[in-house]
């Protein structure tokens, strides 16, 4: 039952990814890294947070494989790893489509019910 092309996808890895994504600061860090690599100092700038606090968030992101460290020994720039994100998105996307289909039909049904509801209450 593994997803095609994602042979190493495991529940553990997915859970780590989703846990990492659950925090708004970590999502903001990822958004920033999507524009290009950045050092811890640069990443801490827009947040009202200490560098150690940011480092803690980065550790969670690194553990989930969402962020890696660049070669520059001085800056130790962090960069975004796109693959785990894509995996997590695909994992939920298939499921989402199923329910979205269900709910779109339910929308149409509810519209119809509202119409008949109105009709019957006006004829009353």
């Amino acid at each position, binding site marked *: 039952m593994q997803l095609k092309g994602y042979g190493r996808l495991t529940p553990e890895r997915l859970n780590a990814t989703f846990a990492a994504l659950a925090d708004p600061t970590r999502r903001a860090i990822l958004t920033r890294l999507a524009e290009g690599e950045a050092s811890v100092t640069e990443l801490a700038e827009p947040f009202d947070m200490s560098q150690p606090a940011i480092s803690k968030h980065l550790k969670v992101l690194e553990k989930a494989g969402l962020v890696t460290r660049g070669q520059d020994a001085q800056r130790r720039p962090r960069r975004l790893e796109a693959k785990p994100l894509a995996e997590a998105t695909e994992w939920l996307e298939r499921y*989402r489509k*199923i329910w979205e289909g*269900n*709910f779109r*039909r*339910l929308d149409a049904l509810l519209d119809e019910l509202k119409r008949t509801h109105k009709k019957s209450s006006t004829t009353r």
Partner: protein
Amino acid sequence: MLNSDTMTITTPNDREIEITRVFDAPRTLVFKALTTPELLKTWLLGPPGWTMTVCEIAPKAGSAYRFEWRKDDGTVMGMGGVLREVIQDERMVSTERFDTSWYPGEAVITQSLVEKNGRTTLTMTMRYESREARDMVVQSGATAGMGMGYDRLDELLLSLGAA
């Protein structure tokens, strides 16, 4: 398509999947659509070729419910369980088990309806017996069990709505 952006899916913990969706209708109508066999048969359907052949449900706590779908090649898929808790227009807790168990154990489904300004938010929480079971449900999504594509039926209901 109107409400596509109002849907969220999250995995609040290891064993659960939570879906929320806003419907442009009062909650009495949503509850009706979730608990009336003739109505369920029009939207809780399979992909092209699937029809809902059995739909037995009554919104009463302690009662059993049973759903079956049939594909035009003769394949039958069934599931059922017990409605543990029913609060009219508000909340329903049910158990769910498929005949051919494609995930281990039984799931507990909680559906709640909250209405605001004539719009209703449905929250469905599916709690599985293990993380593995939950992940199987999501990963097998489009192909097994309730994981069926629904595109053509979407059109059907749209045409019903237009009629």
